[in-house]
């Protein structure tokens, strides 16, 4: 098989697994279903690292795949560049550990094959969104991931979960409508749906009206998917209501792929970034950062607290990207990777506590350190990462964002980033104090540590947290640096795709 054929596999493997599990799942034992769901995840992680290796020798540092042999702009193409590979590695690696964790966590749910079907549909949507080079195809994959996530939020079918899912579904669908309207306007103006071709037409046009209007629609639509602050109301309800492994998936990778990746890809590579866009990104990022963390301080529900921190950390990512200098974007993308690792880990910890103790309320747990040493230890690492304590990965990415703010002369935003980091630290000291340290309660005497598979995932993610800082070494830095170059040299994206297909 030709090596370029790795690109469509990112869609084929999860889609096949989703429907295969839904047929076979009813007839085979639980362990077989677990095996059927872990193997595709391992394959996907392997292929995403394989794509990273292939990219080095690819012409123009772009894996371009013409579906059905039809050349773009007439056919649909898949285009994976350094930014796409970066996201693929993050998404598939985190999905692998969450899938392994789910095999232990989903024991107590009855309809387990359906869970994995929806999980893989969500993964299909995210992988498809990353690899596609066609704007409408992007919308379709976005909707696949969104619809699967609405259903997963309601998976427990209790009153609160249904309420959260309803809110999320309605707001998410309205956001999708805004995105669709933006695509309609762009199609009406450029007469093409291929992103590269669209960028070419927009670059040569002189209309002052179309880009600001479409930008506003896209910021509303993708901003809601990314839970930036004026559009964040659904996230604190939806993320805690899902099963813990799905909360980790939603907070860890879904809001980043559907929100930040799509936003960055469209604004930097298709519409062409302007100073106004960057100012809007910085502003939205900064207010998300502050409001998210301030609201998190007063929460007593562990998962709800973590959900508010997701808003705040997404604020850091968007602030970093909004600075617009290479260093700022580097910090933003590095923080995106780090956040998806430690926020998944934190949600998995909360799931382990929920699994063993049966509560999410911080007031009802105490001194769990003795009974659940591994959960406590990994939670300590993740908390220190998210708060930005030196040896862990979160420290480096926040430091880079703050340096970039100073370098670009945005001292106000720099101050906001520092204050946000201090408040995050305060909030996670509260978690440590109430959940893990202190006296062991009577009610928690018989608590046991979580099963082996759950411990394995948590330890693996904690190791990534500790070692994350090594990505800054010169030999590993191209992994993120090449992704930054894709965004900085935005117009090159369309030139490479159109140049490759012209051959």
């Amino acid at each position: 098989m030709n090596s370029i054929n790795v690109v469509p596999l990112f869609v084929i493997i999860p889609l096949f697994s989703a429907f295969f599990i839904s047929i076979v799942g009813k007839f085979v034992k639980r362990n077989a279903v677990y095996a059927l769901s872990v193997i595709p995840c391992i394959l996907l992680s392997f292929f995403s690292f394989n794509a990273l290796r292939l990219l080095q020798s690819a012409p123009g540092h772009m894996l371009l795949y013409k579906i059905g042999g039809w050349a773009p702009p007439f056919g649909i193409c898949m285009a994976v560049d350094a930014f796409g590979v970066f996201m693929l590695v993050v998404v598939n690696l985190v999905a692998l550990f969450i899938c392994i964790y789910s095999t232990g966590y989903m024991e107590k749910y009855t309809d387990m094959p359906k869970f994995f079907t929806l999980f893989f549909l969500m993964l299909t949507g995210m992988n498809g969104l990353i690899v596609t080079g066609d704007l409408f195809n992007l919308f379709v994959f976005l909707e696949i991931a969104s619809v699967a996530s609405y259903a997963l939020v309601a998976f427990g079918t209790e009153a609160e979960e249904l309420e959260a899912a309803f809110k999320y579904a309605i707001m998410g669908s309205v956001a999708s409508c805004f995105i669709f309207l933006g695509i309609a306007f762009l199609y009406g103006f450029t007469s093409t749906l291929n992103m590269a071709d669209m960028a070419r037409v927009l670059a040569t046009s002189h209309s002052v009206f179309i880009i600001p209007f479409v930008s506003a629609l896209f910021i509303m639509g993708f901003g809601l998917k990314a839970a930036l602050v004026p559009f964040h109301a659904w996230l604190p309800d939806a993320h805690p209501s899902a099963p813990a492994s799905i909360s980790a998936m939603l907070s860890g990778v879904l809001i980043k792929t559907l929100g930040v990746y799509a936003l960055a890809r469209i604004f930097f590579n298709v519409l062409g970034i302007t100073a106004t866009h960057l100012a809007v990104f910085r502003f939205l990022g900064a207010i998300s950062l502050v409001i998210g963390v301030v609201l998190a301080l007063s929460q007593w529900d562990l998962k709800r607290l973590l959900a508010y921190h997701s808003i705040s950390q997404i604020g850091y990512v968007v602030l970093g990207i909004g600075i617009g200098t290479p260093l700022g974007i580097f910090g933003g993308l590095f923080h995106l990777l780090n956040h998806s690792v430690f926020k998944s880990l934190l949600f998995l910890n909360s799931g382990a506590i929920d699994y063993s103790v049966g509560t999410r309320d911080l007031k009802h747990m105490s001194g769990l350190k003795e009974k659940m040493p591994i959960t406590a230890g990994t939670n300590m690492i993740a908390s220190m990462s998210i708060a930005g304590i030196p040896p862990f990965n979160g420290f480096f990415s926040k430091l880079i964002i703050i340096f970039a703010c100073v370098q670009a002369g945005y001292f106000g935003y720099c101050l906001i980033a520092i204050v946000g980091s201090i408040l995050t630290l305060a909030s996670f000291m509260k978690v440590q104090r109430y959940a893990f340290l202190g006296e062991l309660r009577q009610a928690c005497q018989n608590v046991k540590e979580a099963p082996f598979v759950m411990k394995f995932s948590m330890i693996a993610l904690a190791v990534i947290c500790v070692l994350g800082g090594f990505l800054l070494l010169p030999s590993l830095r191209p992994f993120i640096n090449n992704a930054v170059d894709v965004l900085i040299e935005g117009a090159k994206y369309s030139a490479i795709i159109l140049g490759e297909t012209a051959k």
Partner: protein
Amino acid sequence: MRHNPDAGMSIIVKTVTRLTVGLILLFGIYIVLHGHISPGGGFAGGVIIALSFVHLMLAFGKDVASRKLSKNIASNLEAVGALMFLLIAVAGFFGGSFFVNILEKGTPFKLFSAGTMLLNNVAISLKVGVGLFAIFLALVILEGSKKKK
């Protein structure tokens, strides 16, 4: 068609349904098979096929309809439709790349032409027709379970 005379709608509706439901199903199949040479196709045909079953359910009640096509079989067939579409797409690898039309194209406006288009339409109609019916059945069963409480 054995059924409980009290379930469902009046005798007029039942008689008319008995006469038309086969024709509706046949028309749906016609639309699917001619999708590549005339307006229509997998989605439209699939909706018509689903409507014939929904029609049956409205007239005779859910027991008769789910005896024709039970919910388990429906959800399995739906997944089979999706897998079939995916396999046709993957079969394109034999022709060089994903989604390549590997079969003989034939002459235009003949029933067996346009390569894999016909098979794609059949897969889509299976997915849409059975899926839509399964959604309707699920909503009806959900509504019914509430009344028992």
